[in-house]
């Protein structure tokens, strides 16, 4: 059984086309097999609706009189990139407002434009002979623009790694709030509805594929950035006319203490040209496996704690290393389904036709880490090796003497086995003295001690010191022996901050 895209388009035209959403197709393939499914179904619609930071828009304002070369540009006080022709700019989803910070950003500007709301434009220029105007202030709506073209360098990740947090502290990330001690895990992506999961080898998806983008028609214009098909992390680069879009299918968003982004609704129609393609669209949530990462480790290569399927993720809890963790979606399954259903309706009503891709997306690209030519200083490069510690059974006088003799204000507290059990500051000692009481180091020390390791980059240690407003971090080895200390002062001397 073979069909062509032309034949399917003919069926769309005469109203006989058979269209189902990807989740329904999974059931059909299971019930009647891929061969029969390929006969019965012409198009499978997919959908995803998630926060996609690598999104933005090219806008053209038309020329003012006298004309201006818009160099430094702000839209609703969000900086847009003006380093292209005079009245073209690019506004990116994660750019934050100058005045409102993370509460409003590029994603919100895009939403406001699509919703037909007026935005404030302010631009400056050094002035040239051909563009004498040096400053402009105006208000525009999307209809006032010549072009408003969404162009997203990386959308619709095939799948995404799950985020959880091993540390003792809450983390605010682009994967949402991660509670301490693995209390939650967050995930993104629509699983069996995900566009690329339904055609992972790009047998139908390619450059020129017409898609649903934020309620309007869009196109795939190539592989997305970080496209990594071998690791099942493929991505799409897409464009669409914002003037056609529907504000219900995109949303400016803020992830607390991460910043702004844009929720993008994206759906790809998969033409069922043969049995193999039908079999691929039979993919189910349980077939789509992804890794669970520990975001508590602030490094590029975060530890993989295990693997889970989207079925497990959608069930509300996963089991990782014998521990049951509650899972929460960041992308909207509700809206993803709505995208797939809306696209199906368009096709059934004869309002949307499929395109033959000009070129399939590559299957051989990989994602490389950044080439770094300057080595980041590590904790071992700046720490003090001769760290003065106190034993947990020392009394106040002994601790005070150690601090005074060592000219230090922080003393890690160690056990008989020389393992770190707490930390004491001069302030802790002062408090006990002020109260006129006696105490042992072990009774008044702070037990929860943040630590660092020899090979941790100083930037990461500095972030801990700043975030938790502390002044020193003991350096420990794998057995929790204190082998050094690093203080805020040392870091400031090294990198000139705080």
């Amino acid at each position: 059984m073979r069909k062509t895209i032309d034949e399917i388009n003919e069926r769309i035209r005469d109203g006989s086309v058979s269209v189902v959403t990807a989740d329904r197709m999974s059931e059909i393939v299971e019930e009647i097999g891929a061969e029969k499914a390929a006969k019965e179904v012409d198009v499978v619609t997919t959908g995803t609706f998630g926060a996609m930071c690598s999104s933005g828009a090219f806008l053209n304002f038309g020329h003012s009189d006298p004309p201006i070369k818009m160099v430094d540009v702000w839209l609703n006080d969000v900086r847009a990139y003006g380093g292209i022709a005079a009245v073209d700019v690019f506004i990116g989803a994660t750019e934050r407002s100058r005045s409102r910070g993370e509460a409003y950003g590029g994603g919100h500007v895009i939403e406001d434009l699509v919703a037909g709301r007026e935005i404030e434009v302010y631009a400056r220029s050094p002035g040239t002979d051909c563009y004498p105007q040096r400053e402009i202030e105006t208000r525009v709506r999307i209809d006032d623009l010549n072009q408003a073209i969404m162009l997203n360098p990386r959308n619709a990740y095939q799948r995404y790694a799950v985020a959880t947090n091993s540390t003792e502290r809450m983390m605010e990330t682009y994967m949402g709030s991660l509670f301490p001690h693995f209390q939650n895990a967050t995930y993104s992506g629509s699983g069996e509805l995900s566009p690329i999961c339904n055609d992972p080898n790009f047998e139908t998806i390619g450059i020129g594929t017409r898609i649903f983008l934020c309620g309007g028609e869009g196109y795939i214009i190539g592989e997305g950035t970080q496209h990594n098909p071998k690791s099942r992390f493929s991505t799409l680069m897409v464009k669409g006319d914002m003037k056609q879009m529907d504000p219900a299918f995109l949303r400016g968003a803020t992830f607390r203490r991460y910043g702004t982004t844009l929720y993008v609704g994206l759906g790809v129609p998969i033409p069922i040209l043969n049995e193999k393609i039908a079999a691929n669209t039979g993919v189910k949530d349980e077939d789509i496996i992804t890794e669970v990462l520990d975001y508590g480790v602030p490094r590029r290569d975060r530890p993989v704690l295990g693997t889970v399927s989207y079925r497990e993720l959608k069930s509300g809890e996963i089991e990782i290393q014998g521990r049951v963790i509650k899972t929460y979606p960041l992308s909207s399954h509700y809206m993803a389904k709505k995208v797939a259903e809306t696209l199906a309706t368009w096709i059934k009503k004869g309002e949307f036709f499929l395109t033959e891709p000009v070129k399939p997306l590559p299957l051989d690209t990989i994602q490389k880490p950044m080439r770094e030519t300057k080595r980041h200083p590590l904790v071992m490069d700046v720490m003090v090796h001769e760290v003065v510690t106190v034993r947990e059974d020392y009394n106040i006088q002994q601790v005070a003497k150690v601090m005074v003799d060592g000219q230090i204000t922080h003393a890690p507290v160690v056990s008989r086995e020389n393992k770190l059990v707490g930390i004491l500051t001069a302030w802790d000692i002062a408090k006990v003295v002020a109260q006129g009481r006696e105490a042992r180091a072990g009774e008044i020390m702070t037990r929860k001690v943040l630590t660092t390791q020899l090979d941790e980059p100083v930037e990461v240690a500095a972030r801990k010191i700043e975030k938790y407003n502390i002044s020193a971090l003991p350096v420990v080895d794998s057995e929790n022996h204190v082998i050094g200390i690093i203080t805020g002062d040392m870091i400031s001397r090294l990198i000139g901050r705080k």
Partner: protein
Amino acid sequence: MKVRLVYTPSAIQEPLIAEIILATRAKININRADIGAVSGEMIIDIPEDKYNQVVRMFRDKGLKVSLLHRPIVRDDNRCVMCGICTSICPIGAFKIEKDWSVTFEPEKCIQCGVCVSACPTSALELSEGEI
């Protein structure tokens, strides 16, 4: 029934809650309390049968009492039903339904407000209450 109490400086000095519970025997549940030296606010849950009596006593003591019908207001034009609120809410007032829509049970809400700042699309707002 949930109400918000706004304390006056003089009322803060008195063991008001204790007095009212002793007088009415109402099983009042304190959901949230933020009492400072000169001002304060509290969200309490009052059993329906004692509601009028308890509210009258608070008002007699000069407190501002407002009934919270919907402690959190959701703008359905902004909500995208992502479900992040279900993750952050400490008492599980938000729920993901079978069709992946997200629902809210106002009677559980203690107006802590964490969902308001966690909501990525700014769809949630604390209600100031009625009456």
